[in-house]
């Protein structure tokens, strides 16, 4: 019996794109539905009544929400190839910790740079650099956060990389200057088909952000 997989998401979402990367890593076929967050579909509201947010993965009619919970679900169900989490419990705990760190920090800091006042932007920029430097330290000399192989933490962070150009533009700084190893890592990840086919174009993201700023009355 064939698996029926549906993903509700939006093309710029770093959270939704994590799920796309994970599905691609596992070689899974699925139906993609682009949501308009200013006009959410009845399906979205039914499948995620608690948060009414994307991404939502619907597997054989059953919904799962929250991007890293979805990624972990995908990893557990389709464990035949490209494992994202390691097998050792301590390594798994480290991976969960760093993915949680990305979740706790990056989105909110990024918001300060893109969607707020000049004062907050400076704070946001400092915090982002600090955050990315810490992550860069954790990467060390490994090709990926997962070590030799692309893994759970890589999935959690790589989808923010197409937003780097937007952060740099509004924050007026260069992430490559501050964190060259991390940017090298993003380029390495983009060589993977699963990543390059799932991430949005950084310039399109910039246009999108600019449009949202106008809509919110920031520009």
């Amino acid at each position: 019996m064939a698996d029926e997989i549906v993903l509700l998401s939006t093309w710029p979402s770093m959270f939704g794109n994590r799920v796309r990367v994970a599905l691609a890593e596992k070689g899974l076929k699925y139906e993609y539905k682009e949501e308009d967050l200013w006009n959410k579909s009845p399906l979205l509201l039914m499948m995620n009544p608690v948060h009414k947010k994307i991404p939502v993965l619907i597997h054989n009619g059953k919904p799962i929400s929250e991007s890293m919970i979805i990624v972990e679900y995908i990893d557990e169900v389709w464990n035949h190839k490209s494992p994202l989490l390691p097998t050792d419990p301590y390594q798994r705990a480290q991976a969960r910790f760093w993915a949680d760190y990305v979740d706790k920090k990056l989105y909110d800091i990024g918001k300060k740079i893109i969607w707020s006042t000049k004062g907050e932007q400076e704070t946001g920029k400092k915090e982002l650099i600090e955050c990315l430097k810490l992550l860069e330290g954790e990467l060390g000399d490994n090709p990926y956060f997962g070590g030799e192989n692309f893994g759970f933490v890589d999935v959690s962070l790589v989808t923010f990389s197409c937003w780097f150009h937007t952060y740099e533009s509004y924050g007026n700084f260069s992430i490559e200057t501050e964190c060259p190893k991390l940017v090298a890592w993003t380029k390495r990840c983009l060589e993977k088909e699963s990543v390059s086919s799932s991430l949005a174009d950084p310039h399109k993201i910039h246009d999108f952000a600019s449009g949202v700023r106008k809509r919110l009355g920031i520009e």
Partner: protein
Amino acid sequence: MGEEVKLFRSWSSSFALRIVWALEIKGIEYEAVFEDLSNKSPLLLQYNRVHKKIPILVHNGRPIVESFVILEYIDETWKQAPLLPEDPYERAMARFWAKFGEDKVLTSIWSAFIKQGKEQEEAMVAAMENLKFLEKEMKGKKFFGGERIGYVDLTLGWLANLGSIFEEIVGLKIVDEEKFPLLYSWMQDFAEAPIIRDNWPPRDKMIVKFQALLDAAIAASSSSSSSK
């Protein structure tokens, strides 16, 4: 063969209590190291250099931090009395509800306790909405984990204790028995369950602590509004 398990905790932390319960439910021997959070030990700062917080589980010298991460580590390392279900979909649901409890329920109830005026009213509205979702999730179950206490119960356990403490201090009914009968009865069953019941921090000390936090918050908000 020695297994060294240490738990860095404080006397009152609800987050650390989750780990105490998990270790005891699984019958794991451990040494509790009580931290004074106003004067953190060098060891705490070394083991959790990123967040500098408790709880920290140290297993054979290696630290694990963040209570949800620690719970999953414990469940994967010691297989007896499993906390998470076996089925991947049920596991995803458990993780979802635990995250909801943390991000939404805890945040809104804390705000309903610590804030004043309009902010408190808004927080109460949000808290009631969030509790409705939990109430629905309890349908047909004794615990969130089903017949036995599980992962979600441990992560929401603070509600069964702090709920009534907050209510006593601010005189606000948060989990009304009439509005949320299933949740109310879960709070009683959970609070009285063996192991859970044996580990609650002293209620009188908790009331003093949280009253002091509230007093400080009120003082801070009235001084900031009068300094205009």
